[in-house]
């Protein structure tokens, strides 16, 4: 009984091991350096207005995904954890979108009107 019990659910490795952790760490460091390098170049005038911010957020989003999936083990977590993680960003997006659709449609002026 005792043996069965403990073997029941610590059989599979629920992480990527030390080499995997080091790879994720490497991605995070490269991402940080890339963020800084990109920020020194004026992408706004090369590409389009807001490109600098967009690229910075894109890199931050990739870094965040790496941390969540591998350091926080979401990759091996139950569906309910996936739902919580994705759901929180969904609600965040609603907060941003509804707030900004208000501010962007108030006409001219410091806060419109």
């Amino acid at each position: 009984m005792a043996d069965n019990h403990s073997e029941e659910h610590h059989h599979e490795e629920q992480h990527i091991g030390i080499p995997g952790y080091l790879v994720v760490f490497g991605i995070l460091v490269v991402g940080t350096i890339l963020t800084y390098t990109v920020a020194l170049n004026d992408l706004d005038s090369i590409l389009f207005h807001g490109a600098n911010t967009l690229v910075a957020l894109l890199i931050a989003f990739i870094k965040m995904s790496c941390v969540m999936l591998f350091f926080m083990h979401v990759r091996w977590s139950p569906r309910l954890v996936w739902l919580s993680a994705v759901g929180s960003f969904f609600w965040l997006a609603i907060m941003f979108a509804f707030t900004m659709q208000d501010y962007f449609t108030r006409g001219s002026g410091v806060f419109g009107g």
Partner: protein
Amino acid sequence: MATHVDTHGEYHPPGLQHQFEDMKQQEESVSIGMWMFLVQEIMFFGGLFTVYLVFRSRFPMAFAAGSNHLNVVMGFANTLVLIVSSLTMALTVYYAQKGNRNMQVILIILTMIFGATFLGVKVVEYKEKYDDGLVPVTGLNRKVKASAGEEHGEEPAKPCWEGAHEEHEYINPKGEFQWHDCSLAKKAENEGFLTPTEKIGYYNPASGQIDANKFRDKVRIYFWIYFAMTGLHALHMIVGLILMSWLLYKAWKNTFSAEYYMPVEMSGLYWHFVDIVWIFLFPLLYLLGRHFIAHGG
């Protein structure tokens, strides 16, 4: 813990609480609870990110000007320090699952050292802002008395977009927020990308020119947001360090094993979350206006 065997007459994993069927159910319940906490933390910081979004979209040049004044080297170093601490935290969980006490203790201590380093750098940064008169609360900045014969509070006669790179000894007897440089707004005006909202926000309605005081007030909004967001983040780091101290004590007593390691895993989730917040704060606060000044523009 050993009494479990006696009362039930059958085997119990040492970390299993009575209300759960087995370790798997207990671990899932624990991690759902922790994730619910993290979801509300995301919404909590999300409110501040919304404030940032609203004001930055209104006054992008004031935000860029304020951002360019931050110490980007320290911000960059702190980002790396936090990423390393996330790695040591992830490895702590790894060794807790293996039941390796010594590696756990070493890695928790390393995580705490990196966390403390982050806070130390933050203190140096806050001190710089205090010396430069950039704390947005009147009276909380370094008070500099007027020297004899000088009129105090006298603004320089030059317009605020000239002499931006001169080091001038400001006079600040009341500890007020100090900002004299509006060259970035002037640059945007010259190159024609000052938005209509910004014109209302920065211009003196009488003269139709950029007004140093009006621009300063918009930069002040940026520094409010900077202190609120990094301050709240630093508070989370302090809580994280307290959590780590407790974890260190438990690990020292060899509490964690392949069967019972959820406290380490959950503290790790919290630590990584705080790291993720900084991953967004660094580009949004430190780097947003760098491209305007990077090549001597």
